[in-house]
C-alpha cells in the first residue's frame, strides 16, 4: 500500500501553503546582533593590531617578566615579558585567519562536491556519498596529527587539516539542500528551458542553499577557533612567537599558580570569538530557516 503513495511532503496536492508562526523576530534578531557585536570586537582587535599594539607582542623583554596587570600592562606580562594585552589583540589575527581559511577551504571542497552529488541522484550520488563517508572517518584532529607529521606542524597545516576535515560536513549540507532545491519546480522549468547542469547549479542551486551554507560556515568558524586552540595545546598549532590564543592558554598552564590571570585572558578571548560565531549562526538560522519565514 505504501508503494502507491507519494513520499510524505512531496505530494503535489491542491493545498494552500501551510502557514507557520512568524519568526521570533525579537529573539532571533537579538541573537544575531549580539553575535555580530562579539565578532566585531574580534575583527576590530585583528585590524587594530595589524597597525598598532601597545607593545611588541613578538619580542622578548627580560626586564618585565610576569608583571601583574597594571596601568602600563593592562593584562600583565607573560614569561617572556610580553604584554598580554598586545598578544591578545594580535592573536585575533590567527584565530580569524585559521577560521577563514579552514571554513573557506571546507566550503570550496565540500560545496561543489555536495551540489554535484545532490544534482545527480542515483549511482554517482551513492558513490560520492561513500567517498564522503570515508572522509568523515578522518576527523580534523586526526588529519592535523597526520599532516603535522608529514608537513610539519604550523598554522598552514592546521588550517588545511581543519579545512579538509570540515569539508564533508559542508558536502552533506550542500547535498541535502541541493536535493531540496532540485525538487523545486523552478529547476524543472530551467531544465525544460534547456539550461545546463552547470547553469542550474550556479544560478539556482547555489544561491538558494547559500543561507544554510552561511549558517554552517558560521558554526564551523567557531569550531575552527576551538580546534586551533586544541591543536596549539598539542603543539600542532601556530608556532611562537606569533601570538595565538590557544598557545597562550597552553603556555599559561605552567603559570597557573604563579599568575592565574594568564589563563583567563586567552580563555575569555576564545570564548568571545566562539560565542560570537555561534550566536551569529543561531541568528542566521532563524533568519534563513524557510519554516520560520512568513509567506507573502
Amino acid at each position, binding site marked *: *500500500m*505504501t*508503494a502507491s503513495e507519494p513520499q*510524505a511532503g512531496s505530494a503535489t496536492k491542491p493545498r494552500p501553503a*501551510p502557514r*507557520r*508562526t512568524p519568526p*521570533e523576530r525579537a*529573539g532571533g534578531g537579538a541573537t544575531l546582533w549580539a553575535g555580530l557585536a562579539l565578532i566585531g570586537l574580534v575583527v576590530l582587535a585583528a585590524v587594530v593590531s595589524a597597525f598598532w599594539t601597545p607593545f611588541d607582542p613578538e619580542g622578548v623583554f627580560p626586564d618585565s617578566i610576569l608583571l601583574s596587570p597594571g596601568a602600563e600592562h593592562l593584562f600583565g606580562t607573560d614569561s617572556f615579558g610580553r604584554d598580554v594585552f598586545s598578544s591578545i589583540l594580535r592573536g585575533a589575527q590567527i584565530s580569524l585567519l585559521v577560521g577563514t581559511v579552514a571554513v573557506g577551504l571546507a566550503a570550496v571542497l565540500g560545496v561543489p562536491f555536495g551540489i554535484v552529488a545532490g544534482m545527480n541522484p542515483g549511482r554517482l550520488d551513492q558513490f560520492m556519498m*561513500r*567517498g564522503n*563517508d*570515508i572522509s*568523515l*572517518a*578522518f*576527523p*580534523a*584532529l*586526526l588529519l592535523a*596529527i*597526520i599532516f603535522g*607529521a*608529514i608537513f610539519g606542524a604550523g598554522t598552514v597545516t592546521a588550517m588545511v587539516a581543519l579545512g579538509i576535515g570540515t569539508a564533508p560536513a559542508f558536502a552533506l549540507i550542500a547535498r541535502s539542500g541541493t536535493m531540496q532545491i532540485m525538487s523545486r519546480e523552478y529547476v524543472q522549468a530551467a531544465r525544460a528551458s534547456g539550461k545546463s547542469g552547470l547553469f542550474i547549479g550556479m544560478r539556482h542551486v547555489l544561491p538558494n542553499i547559500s543561507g544554510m551554507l552561511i549558517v554552517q560556515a558560521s558554526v564551523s568558524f*567557531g569550531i575552527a577557533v*576551538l580546534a586551533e*586552540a*586544541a591543536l596549539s*595545546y*598539542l603543539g600542532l598549532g601556530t608556532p611562537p612567537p606569533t601570538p595565538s590564543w*590557544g598557545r597562550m*592558554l597552553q603556555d599559561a*598552564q605552567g603559570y*597557573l599558580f604563579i599568575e592565574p590571570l594568564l*589563563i583567563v585572558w586567552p*580563555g575569555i578571548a*576564545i*570564548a*568571545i*570569538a*566562539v*560565542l560570537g560565531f*555561534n*550566536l551569529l549562526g543561531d541568528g542566521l*538560522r532563524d533568519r534563513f530557516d524557510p*519554516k520560520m519565514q512568513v509567506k507573502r
Partner: protein
Amino acid sequence: MVLVVLRRLGVFATTVIVASVVTFLMLSILPGDAARIALGVQATEADVAAQATAMGLDRPAIVRYLDWFGHVLIGEFGTSTVSRQAIGPEITDALGITVILVLTSVVLALLFAIPFGILTAVRQRKPDGAILSGISQIGVAVPGFLAGMLLVTVFAVTLRWLPAGGWVDPGNDFGGFLEHLILPAIALGSVQGAVLSRYVRSSVLEVMREDFIRTARAKGLGAGRALFRHGLRNAAVPVMTVLGLQIATLLVGAVVIERVFSIPGLGSLLLDKVALRDLPAVQGIVLVLVVFVLLLNFLVDLAFTLIDPRLRSVS
C-alpha cells in the same frame, strides 16, 4: 533481505578497503627515518640501514600495503617497530580506555543535555530559558582542555579529592577506576553536553512546531505531556545524528583531554606512535579509528531504523 544485508556489508567492506588505502598512502609519505629514530643519534649508518631492512622499509609500497592489509584482515596488525610487541593488544587496550572515557562523557553529556535542552526550548520566551540558553552557549565556547585544567586545579590539586590524572583498570580496582574516570569524563562531557543541549533545544523547538503536537494538544494533552509523549522520540532523530558524529570525532578528539589527564588512550597512543614513526602501529591505529567511525555510522543508521518505522516497513 539477505541479499540486501550482503550488499550493505559489501559497501561497508569496500569503504573500509578504500579507507585502508587512503590511510596507507597518507602515512607512507611521512618524513623521518624510523630506523634512525629507533637506533638514536649514536648509531652508525650501516646499523641504520640494516635496521631499515629488518623493519621491511625497503620493500616497494604495494608489497608493503598488501602485506599489511592482508594481515590486518586476519586480525594481525603486525609488530610495533618500537615496542616489538604485537600491535593489536596495544590498540585494543588504548581503544578500550578511550571508548570508556568517551562513552561515559557522552552519557554525562546526555544526562545534562536532554533535560537542559528541553527546558531551554520549552521556556524559550521566558527569562530563565534565555539565561539557561546563554549558559549553554558559553559552555560551547570553552575549550575542553581549559575545562580539564580548571577541574584538575580545583578538585585534584587544591581540594585533593580526586587524582589529577592517570588511569586504573576497572578489573584491578573498580573504585580507583571510577576516581580516575570522573574528572576527565566531566571535562570531556561538559563541553559535549553544552553542544548537545544546543541541538536538543533546536530539535525540540522544531518538533514543537509540528502539526502532530498541535493534534496532541487538541486531544487535551497539556503542552508538556504532548511534548513528552509525542515530541521527544521525533526530536531524538536529528540529535542522534549529531551524537554519532560527536562520538566519532571524540575518539581522536579525546586526545586533548587524555593529555591533560595523562590517560593512555588511543589518541595519546597515536601521538606517541607518530612521534616515534612506528608506522605499523600508526597505520593500525588510524585504520581502527576509521573503521570504528564507519561502524558507528552504520549503527546510527540502524538506530534510525529502530526509531523510525518509516525506514523499517515496506512489505
